[in-house]
């Protein structure tokens, strides 16, 4: 079972800044193990963010995004109390969804 995504969302005057830290190995598929065999790539492929149940953004990633991915962006018109849902799915089909309230 994967660890929860840490989400921090702070409302400003007319927008909210969202920062998140997902927990994922993000194995590049370039590394080799001790016996010289390539460690297969394992990474988050898609991220989606909903504000009060409405999709506002999606991201597609390759294995070049760093381990335990960080993402920051700004949602216009979002205010304190609004609900954020962050979901991801990786290339093995594992998925996770976490919620946070904008503060």
């Amino acid at each position, binding site marked *: 079972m994967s660890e929860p995504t840490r989400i921090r969302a702070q409302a400003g005057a007319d927008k909210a800044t969202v920062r998140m830290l997902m927990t994922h190995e993000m194995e590049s598929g370039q590394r080799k193990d001790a016996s010289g065999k390539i460690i297969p790539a394992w990474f988050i492929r898609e991220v989606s963010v909903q504000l009060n149940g409405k999709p506002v*953004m999606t991201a597609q990633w390759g294995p*070049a995004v760093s381990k335990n991915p960080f993402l920051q962006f700004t949602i216009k018109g979002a205010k304190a109390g609004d609900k954020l849902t962050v979901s991801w799915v990786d*290339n093995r089909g594992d998925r996770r969804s976490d919620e946070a309230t904008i503060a």
Partner: protein
Amino acid sequence: MPSRRDLLGHSARIATLLAAAGLLPELARAQGSSYPSAAFEAKTMADVMKALGAGVPAESKDVTITAPDIAENGAVVPVGASTGLAGVRRILILVEKNPAILSAMFNFTDAVEPSFSTRVKMDQSSNVYAVAMMSDGRVLFAHKEVRVTLGGCAG
């Protein structure tokens, strides 16, 4: 002569590969999503654009890339891509000398500002690109060279 352990390891890996190959298309259909695999395998910006069905990118001062001049650890390089332009639908982050050039792609509605920050791995010193794809079909980019002291892909 391969040892028994090697053989077992092999078959487990092959099983994983087969499962991934069989399951992933189903997953993509279920989500109604389309992961652009060809774009994420491309080696050059031109090939990424071709895979995404986009036009020829032009350099623009209206697109901003934020990245360090020197990255001590190539495994964690903070990169930001933003633009002040309206009508941007998609922002890409590309690292020229990585095994695959496209690192991340962000698609968003008008509710989100065209500005994203994340962290990427860099194999070696390279140009990093921020690309903005506009709803009118224009593709604009900015670039910056980042020197990497310790590579972060094969490490």
